[in-house]
């Protein structure tokens, strides 16, 4: 028997998403992921002053705003031909690390834990499925950690604000690195806050994720997908320090190789966009919205590398950097998030130890008449790219490919589904009336539809039973 399961909204994500899944004999045979909001940042950027991109593009997303300030600053540095001082990079990367911590801690406790742990403290947290397996003492301990984690993720944002003025939507990340200068007092404040976060990750977050994994072992077998992994590099290529985490690398067909930007193409065959070509390099075309496009089923674009879909994010980075065994599944992805949080704290310790107080890295920058630049950087959820062009001292072109566009793309003209769609295929659904599996698998990617900025269009639905 064929059943269609539609979940909308998928809660505990950033932004709005609908999931359409077809189930045959209790197994997923088809899946579509659709973003449910559209704001059109790329069109908004055209005509604006180039420097404003740093603060403007942050407003794409409230949970990973520093990520966009990173990518736009790097793109502007490329366009202005500026190499930031190492001290500027250190401080900027510390700010970026704070966002990783805030995001990973919140994603695990506020977004993932309610999937596996019965939360009785508040009706808001009451689940609508029955698959809870933790023994009561373990369950209650992790449920308590849901609340214990709040001051911890909060203090990660507090650290970010020490250097960046405020969070979300910081003011510190900019061309040249940062606007602020470190002082001994700031370094000590950061180090002290960091120690509490490290203790929390060691004592609670990592044990909690392994505890959940122990009671939900089949999630190591499902939610894998293609297994192709990609990173633009994170905390890499420092002059003195080398690479602290991961170089720009890709993994496909049992081979790791260096990342090559020219192999990125975006496809819009099944997306509600119109352009002179359905496959293009990200710096060549800015597709325009077109809701009447036939055969398209979503407004999520489809980035491909070397013609293939690639997964991005913490698991991809851990595997590419040799910090995790080569397995790809929903549970591995969730564990990777906690392990990466630990890794990030170690990077921060190293960076903090390199800080020289009172170094001013800012200059008075001049906007060129024309130019172009790209900012490719791995952020919390994975590979983020900003491509921009300047004409008559204003932005004339802006293209953004976010991590969630990689993970939640549509299918393409070659027949490849998006990474998350593929991850759902074959998943056994225990109870199609209350399908816990779909949300758990999708949330393992930490989807961010605010970033993916899509449009929803009601398509013609197959006449099937709808289960919510």
């Amino acid at each position, binding site marked *: 028997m064929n059943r269609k399961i*539609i*979940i*909308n*909204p*998928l*809660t*505990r994500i950033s932004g*709005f998403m*609908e999931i359409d899944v077809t189930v045959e004999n209790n197994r997923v045979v088809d899946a579509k992921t659709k973003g*449910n*909001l*559209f*704001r*059109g940042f790329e069109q*908004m950027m055209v*005509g604006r*002053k180039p*420097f*404003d991109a740093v*603060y*403007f593009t942050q*407003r794409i997303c*409230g*949970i990973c705003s520093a990520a966009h300030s990173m990518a736009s600053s790097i793109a502007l540095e490329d366009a202005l031909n500026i190499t930031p001082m190492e001290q500027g990079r250190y401080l900027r990367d510390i700010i970026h690390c704070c966002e990783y911590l805030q995001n990973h801690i*919140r994603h695990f406790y*506020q977004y993932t834990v309610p*999937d596996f742990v019965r939360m009785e403290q508040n*009706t*808001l*947290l*009451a*689940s*609508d499925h029955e698959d809870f397996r933790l023994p009561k003492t373990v369950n209650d301990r992790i449920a308590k950690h849901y609340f214990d984690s*709040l*001051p911890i993720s*909060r203090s990660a*944002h*507090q650290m*970010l*604000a*020490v*250097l*960046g*003025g*405020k969070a*979300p*939507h*910081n*003011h510190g990340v900019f061309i040249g690195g940062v606007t*602020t*200068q470190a002082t001994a007092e700031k370094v000590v404040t950061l180090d002290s806050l960091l120690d509490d976060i490290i203790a929390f990750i060691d004592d609670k977050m990592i044990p909690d994720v392994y505890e959940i994994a122990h009671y939900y072992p089949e999630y190591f077998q499902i939610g894998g997908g293609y297994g192709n992994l990609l990173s633009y590099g994170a905390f890499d290529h420092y002059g003195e320090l080398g690479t602290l985490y991961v170089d720009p690398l890709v993994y496909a067909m049992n081979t790791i190789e260096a990342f090559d930007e020219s192999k990125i193409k975006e496809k819009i065959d099944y997306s509600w966009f119109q352009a002179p070509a359905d496959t293009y390099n990200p710096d060549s075309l800015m597709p325009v*919205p077109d809701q009447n496009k036939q055969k398209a089923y979503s407004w999520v674009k489809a980035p491909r590398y070397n013609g293939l879909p690639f997964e991005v994010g913490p698991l991809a980075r851990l595997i590419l950097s040799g910090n995790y065994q080569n397995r790809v599944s929903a549970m591995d992805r969730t564990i990777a998030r906690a392990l990466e949080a630990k890794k990030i704290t170690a990077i921060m310790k190293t960076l903090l130890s390199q800080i020289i107080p009172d170094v001013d890295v*800012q*200059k*008075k920058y*001049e906007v060129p008449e024309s130019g172009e630049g790209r900012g490719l950087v791995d952020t919390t959820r994975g590979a983020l790219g900003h491509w921009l062009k300047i004409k008559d001292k204003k932005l004339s072109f802006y293209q953004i490919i976010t991590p969630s566009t990689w993970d939640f793309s549509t299918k393409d003209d070659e027949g490849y589904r998006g990474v998350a769609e593929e991850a759902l295929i074959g998943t056994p659904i225990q109870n199609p009336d209350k399908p816990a599996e779909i949300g758990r698998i999708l949330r393992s990617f930490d989807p961010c539809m*605010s970033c993916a900025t899509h*449009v929803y269009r*009601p398509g013609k639905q197959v006449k099937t039973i709808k289960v*919510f």
Partner: protein
Amino acid sequence: MEGYILPPETLTNEAIASRLKNEVNEQIRQGLIKKRNLVYLELNGCSGNIISLLNGQNPDFEYTLNSMVNLRYSNSLMAAEGEQAIEQLMEVLDEDYILAVEGAVALKNDGLYNVIGRWKGEPFTGLQAAQMLGEKASHILAVGACATHGGVSAAKPNPSESVGLQTVLPDRNIIKLTGCPVNPDWFLGTLAHILLYGEPETDNLNRPLMFYSTLIHDRCPRRPFFDRGIFAEKLGDKTCLFKLGCRGPVTRVDCPTRQWNGHVNWPVGASTPCIGCASFGFPDAMEPFVSYDTTRIVQDE
């Protein structure tokens, strides 16, 4: 402590506060005091305001959830998903509730640019939700720039045809908490005022005076530099940022004294100009955010 006459232990401030708290909790438990319902709608925006809300301290989110309100709906936080989540939203319609909305209302294509769920098999748009919930709410808070006036979601050329909440609820009194994002104190403080004393006093643009009454410029710690004519030439300089385009002189809010993230810092503290995110014209009327040449004649295109 010898020689001091101490009050009986049960009369210390801590004891009184603790007794009151326990009393209130007990009365809530027994149903004698009802916590007010809060519906938190996220519409066309970046969800930055709910993230900012989680950053709140004293009150923090935990206190808000446990002692101030029954949070009945939040896309970012609730465990239920799919139509079950929307059902929980609909149940509130028959009860008393305070409505908080972040994000703009996207009007394009009858609101289909921002679908927040499905209801009875049909797409349920942000536009429908704003009107349906807004009509019956006892109090309405527009949280952040997108909700108060469209904000970044409505930045030109406004591809989603986004508007502020008031446009689709013209007859309702909406408390407007500008900012991108809102400072958690501005939201939680206003909420506390409603719970304890009713709606707070607002200015002619419906912003609570307790937060939005004074220009940033008037309380800026760098004001002495302005008064002496000492101006920064680039970001990172420690003097007055006016000539880099600081919007402190036109932005009414208490950032200089309240600051952000547990009072640790604020944009001017990071040696950057205020970009006027708490002004109604944000972002388009506040641009350029950063300029190294503000002695120029600004020509509007």
